[in-house]
């Protein structure tokens, strides 16, 4: 049917469009807008065969990503969201070492030193990438279309993993398009993803933080590492990986500590509190959320549409009453 519609041999009416978009679980305008050609995706290895569970998951992830791109574009078109400049590496990044240096450069460009990143969505937004946290299988995906960069991160999985995925997708933006960078030509997809994982790890918990935490001791203690994992809100596996990379953790300790993640009581014991998840209640970036509210205030969107665009971050009851009281008849 799609082929016939595209070729002009079959017309589609509004009702069919509604049914089609409902079946595909995409917004009504999804099928009418252009789709970016290149998407980056952090998920399992996607095979060429379309009919596999992994391929279907990847397909859903792509749909969610493009739908999110359209939403950001709508707010830009309405004049309530002004995308900032995209943060891009000034030189090609072709090694994990270079990727780690790039992560520190990104921190510096955004006015950060070695402190923990409070809100990753806010940080990515300042780098020019709008991140949506949503219910979708897989881990994350990102795309750059013109001067608009967006990413989606799955709400499934643990909060530390979500932050790592968001940081990884930011890496895609900063390192550059996978098919136009020098890296994409020479490196395999797996190597490139490993490079972006290194970027993400260094962005979330700089190695220098680990060496400073260790101090004069030979190695970092488990309590110290638990404390860092809590303050920097990263997964235990990423903390272990970064500690090993920074040379503050022996291979044996990494294996031993890796067998079980810290429990809530261990967090309480080490730092006196349990880490609060990032990218959970906050589903959309702050400036985007402000733009949605602004569009609603100006009467460019209904309350119902504003709630849709906020992806569960608010309900209609959260909107101030009065704007939609009785108008002139």
């Amino acid at each position, binding site marked *: 049917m799609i082929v016939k519609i595209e070729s002009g041999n079959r017309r589609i009416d*509004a009702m069919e*469009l*509604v049914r089609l978009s409902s079946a595909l679980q995409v917004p009504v*305008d999804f099928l009418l807008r252009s789709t970016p050609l290149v998407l980056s995706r952090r998920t399992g290895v996607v095979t060429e065969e379309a009919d596999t569970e992994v391929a279907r998951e990847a397909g859903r992830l792509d749909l969610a990503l493009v739908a999110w791109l359209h939403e950001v574009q709508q707010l830009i078109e309405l004049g309530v969201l002004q995308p900032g400049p995209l943060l891009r590496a000034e030189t090609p990044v072709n090694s994990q070492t270079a990727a780690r240096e790039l992560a520190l450069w990104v921190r510096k460009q955004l006015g950060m030193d070695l402190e923990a990143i409070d809100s990753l969505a806010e940080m990515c937004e300042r780098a020019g990438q709008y991140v949506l946290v949503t219910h979708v299988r897989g881990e994350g995906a990102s795309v750059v279309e013109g001067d608009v960069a967006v990413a989606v991160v799955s709400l499934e999985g643990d909060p530390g993993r979500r932050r790592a995925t968001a940081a990884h997708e930011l890496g895609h933006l900063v390192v550059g398009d996978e098919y136009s960078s020098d890296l994409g030509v020479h490196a395999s997809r797996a190597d490139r993803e490993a490079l972006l994982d290194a970027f993400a790890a260094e962005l979330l918990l700089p190695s220098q933080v680990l060496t400073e935490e260790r101090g004069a001791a030979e190695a970092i203690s488990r309590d110290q590492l638990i404390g860092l994992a809590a303050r920097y809100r990263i997964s235990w596996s990423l903390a272990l990986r970064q500690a090993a990379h920074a040379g503050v953790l022996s291979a044996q300790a990494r294996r031993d500590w890796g067998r079980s993640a810290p429990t809530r009581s261990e967090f309480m014991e080490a730092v006196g509190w349990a880490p609060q998840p990032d990218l959970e209640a906050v589903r959309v970036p702050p400036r985007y959320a402000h733009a949605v509210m602004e569009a609603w205030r100006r009467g*460019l969107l209904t309350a119902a549409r504003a709630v849709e665009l906020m992806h569960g971050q608010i309900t209609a009851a959260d909107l101030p009453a009065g704007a939609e009281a009785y108008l002139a*008849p």
Partner: protein
Amino acid sequence: MTEPAAAVTPVWVLDAMCLSHFARAERLDVLRDLLVDKECWTTQVVLEELRQGAAVHPVLSDVLAGDWFKVAHLDTLDEVRLFAIWVSRIGSGERDLGEASVFAAAELRSATAITDDQGAVRVARTYGLDVHGTIWLLAGACRDGKLSEPAAGSIVDALRVTGLRLPCTGAELPGYARLHGLL
């Protein structure tokens, strides 16, 4: 000597709320008579919404059987695109889709959209659409001598009984309409 301008028939596009509440209040025939000098439209999306609603309110089938309005299918690419644009402003809930289709059909025909969904009215007017509600429609009928003020008031009360949210009661209608310059 110039020819006198031909009278232009007003074109109105009715939403599901208007049609369904008049039907449930058993005043659909009154609505039809009031609009006899108008070119009336609704949309396929609205009729589908009413078809679904007929399972709960069988009287809505009366609307589906109506032959006094035309049905906009929104089936050219430009029409479908315009519908999608309105959906992105109004929302994609079932009722929102109906409103979006009404606004798209009204924009395409430079017509007046009739709805009492205040949120949708606010947005449609921001984009320059001519949109009015049931009170405006009834007050206009009174002004044109098609309906007495008490008869209009009784329709308002009947519609309110069916759950239609209106800004005044039947008794308040004349005062409300005068306050807004409708009478």
